């Protein structure tokens, strides 16, 4: 039986287009200090650090080097330090890295940090283009938005989803973000407002697409013995995992479904002993970089049958007062510090289970699911957190 591990502290930064007020190490320090304060710990209590960022955006490659001492003085005290980077899933992969640091038995208290300074880049799409195979595909430009648009275009074709459904997802997330002091986009957006916004890549409008944000996030993980001493409200990791689909999306052109996520979902539910996610989960933080993805994620994660995600939405099941609120934080749609976004999903899920989500708290949230996707919509990470240890 693997060692139990829990999240015992969470630190977030306010995200914006460009945090001009801080240089990179200061931004990281903000998140790390917030996590330490939340857990009532000091730098010396941290046994190891796991760091993630998606490198080309920040204008500094391998920024963990510059930021090393903003992470509890890890350089000065020669702590174990590991850089994990997996594209958009970096925030999730780095949380998994921290989880395995603790469950290995070698480390008791581990700091996990993820950061991104997209604001330092003039044209984020140029960077995203560098993710596309330079031999076959980079000449076409495009990137994340086109893949999201393909998902919407295909979901419309095969399942009859409409632009209004997308606008409803946008309105719901924007309203939730108003309760989240760390969110990047905080504005009122109605369904009507959304449907009038500029078309970016059909059928995605501006309101259907996430921003690019500057931000950092830190969480502290601990083994059972230490977790119970550090906090009364640990968020136990009940299940966690990752899946890797292949690079060439041309090999899997059925964008209306997200099989790799379904496969991972079944695997992690089994680990977490969850039989009926719609009944047993209290809240979900899903990586909705594009509105359509929230719908597909609900389907792939088994909250409903394939193609029925819009029903969940229209019946209010995923609203704040519904049976399974999705993205009380406003999701990735409203806040996207790319390499850190995955960790923000996990941090938000942890805050829900710890009862620390303030105005965005889902009442009596006991079991939360966090999802992260990345790469050519081919990487996924899932983590299930619970008030009680399994």
């Amino acid at each position: 039986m693997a060692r139990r591990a829990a999240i015992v502290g969470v630190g977030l930064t306010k995200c914006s287009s460009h945090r001009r007020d801080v240089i990179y190490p200061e931004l990281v320090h903000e998140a790390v200090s917030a996590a330490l304060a939340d857990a009532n710990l000091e730098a010396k209590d941290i046994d190891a650090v796991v760091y993630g960022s998606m490198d080309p955006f920040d204008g500094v490659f391998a920024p963990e080097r510059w930021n090393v001492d903003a992470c509890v003085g890890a350089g000065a005290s020669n702590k174990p330090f590991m850089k994990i980077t997996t594209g958009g899933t970096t925030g999730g992969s780095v949380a998994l890295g921290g989880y395995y640091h603790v469950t290995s038995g070698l480390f008791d208290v581990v700091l996990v940090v993820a950061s991104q300074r997209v604001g330092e880049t003039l044209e984020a799409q140029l960077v995203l283009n560098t993710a596309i195979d330079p031999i076959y595909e980079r000449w076409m430009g495009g990137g994340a938005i086109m893949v999201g648009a393909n998902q919407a275009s295909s979901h419309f074709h095969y399942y009859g989803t409409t632009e209004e459904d997308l606008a409803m997802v946008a309105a719901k997330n924007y309203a939730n973000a108003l309760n989240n002091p760390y969110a990047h986009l905080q504005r009122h957006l109605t369904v009507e407002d959304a449907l009038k916004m500029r078309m970016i890549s059909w059928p995605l409008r501006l309101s259907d697409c996430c921003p690019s944000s500057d931000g950092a996030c830190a969480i502290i993980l601990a083994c059972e013995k230490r977790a119970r001493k550090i906090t009364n409200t640990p968020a136990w990791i009940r299940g966690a995992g990752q899946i890797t689909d292949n690079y060439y999306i041309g090999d899997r052109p059925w964008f209306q479904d997200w099989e790799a996520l379904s496969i991972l979902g079944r695997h992690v539910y089994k680990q977490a002993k969850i039989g009926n996610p719609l009944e047993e989960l209290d809240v979900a933080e899903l990586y909705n970089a594009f509105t359509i993805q929230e719908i597909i994620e609900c389907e792939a994660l088994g909250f409903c049958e394939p193609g029925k995600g819009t029903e969940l939405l229209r019946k209010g099941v995923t609203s704040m007062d519904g049976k399974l609120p999705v993205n009380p934080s406003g999701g990735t749609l409203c806040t996207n510090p790319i390499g850190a976004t995955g960790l923000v999903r996990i941090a938000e899920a942890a805050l829900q289970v710890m009862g620390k989500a303030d105005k965005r708290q889902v009442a009596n949230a006991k079991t939360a699911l966090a999802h992260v996707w990345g790469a050519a919509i081919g990487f996924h990470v899932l983590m299930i957190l619970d008030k009680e240890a399994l």
Partner: protein
Amino acid sequence: MPKRVAIVGIGQTKHEESKGHYIYYESDFEAAKLALEDASLTRGDLDTVIASGWDAIDGRTISDMHTCMAIGGYLKDSSHVGEDGIMALAYAYLRIASGLFDIALVAGHGHREANVDAVTRIVFDPLFARPAGRNYIITMAMQANAYMHKYGVSKEQAAKVVVKNRANGVRNPYAHLDSPVTVEEVLASRPVAYPLKALDCPPESVGGVALILAAEDVARRITDKPVWIRGIGWAIESYEMGSKDLAEIPSLTAAAQRAYQMAGIKRPLDEFDLAEVHEATSFHELMDYEALGFAEAGQGAKLIDEGTTEMGGKLPVNPSGGSLCTNLFGASGLVRAAEAALQLRGDAHGRQVAGAKLALAHGLSAPAGAAAPTNCVAILERG
């Protein structure tokens, strides 16, 4: 109790000047297949794969989208360390020690598609260090200079490291550089950054390396020659080079101490049969001796003068030829681990240290050179 972890499969390509017919991740693919063949396993047996290296070196953001496919990661739980491959070994170790995974494959590659100096330059912050002209080799040169100056180490002594490693490389069928050099040739080679000459620096090699790790109970079913990871430790240093004594490598000292404690090593010079170290430059190998506790501070050069670390000496260092013969930028550390493991299995043909039972493998993950380097030490033991 962490589960015991063993290396059960080793794969390494011939390392070369170029592999023109390959796309870069084919080196990972070739090494992964060799490792699977070596272990008599198939892709289906793998629970997880960990890729390594740097996107900006590969010229592809999220390079692991390609490398994970090439090493068996399709529909598996995979990850990627933005580090030298030695850290993929460390991460896979953690995954297996947790009891949540039984079999892992880790891999790394080297190629010559990037300008390493240009890439490492942009690891430095744009405010202070980059405008002051910093990159990997410049900071390594500054460190070598500081070490030379503090302890009176001569360029000839450093050159002897090159002579030793290049002589060892002649007998390594996988090595990229496989011809010997003399002290005179090292000293006469083209200056790079004082005090480094071209031959004091590793080459740029093209190739791949992969290791398969397994949990204790599974390892014994795969091979009757498991190589146990008896101890492992890693540590990082500060970014600010102006705030530390460049003549030492505290991250390597800390990493070694953690690994030695885990493995119960008290007298490294006596207990190890060999060491494969990831020498950033000729001078760094001498510094590594000190950080690893083979010699007191400032006394590393004595070991090379006395022949202690030669093939016939008390503690052969880099019987493979080290990174001075084969340097996969982003995977040299993993090559060191592979070579150490081959030695313990008695499979290091041509370069075998007779009767090797206990080995040290060291890897350096340092995209910013001497600024915030990560050093990792693994203690390997014959099963």
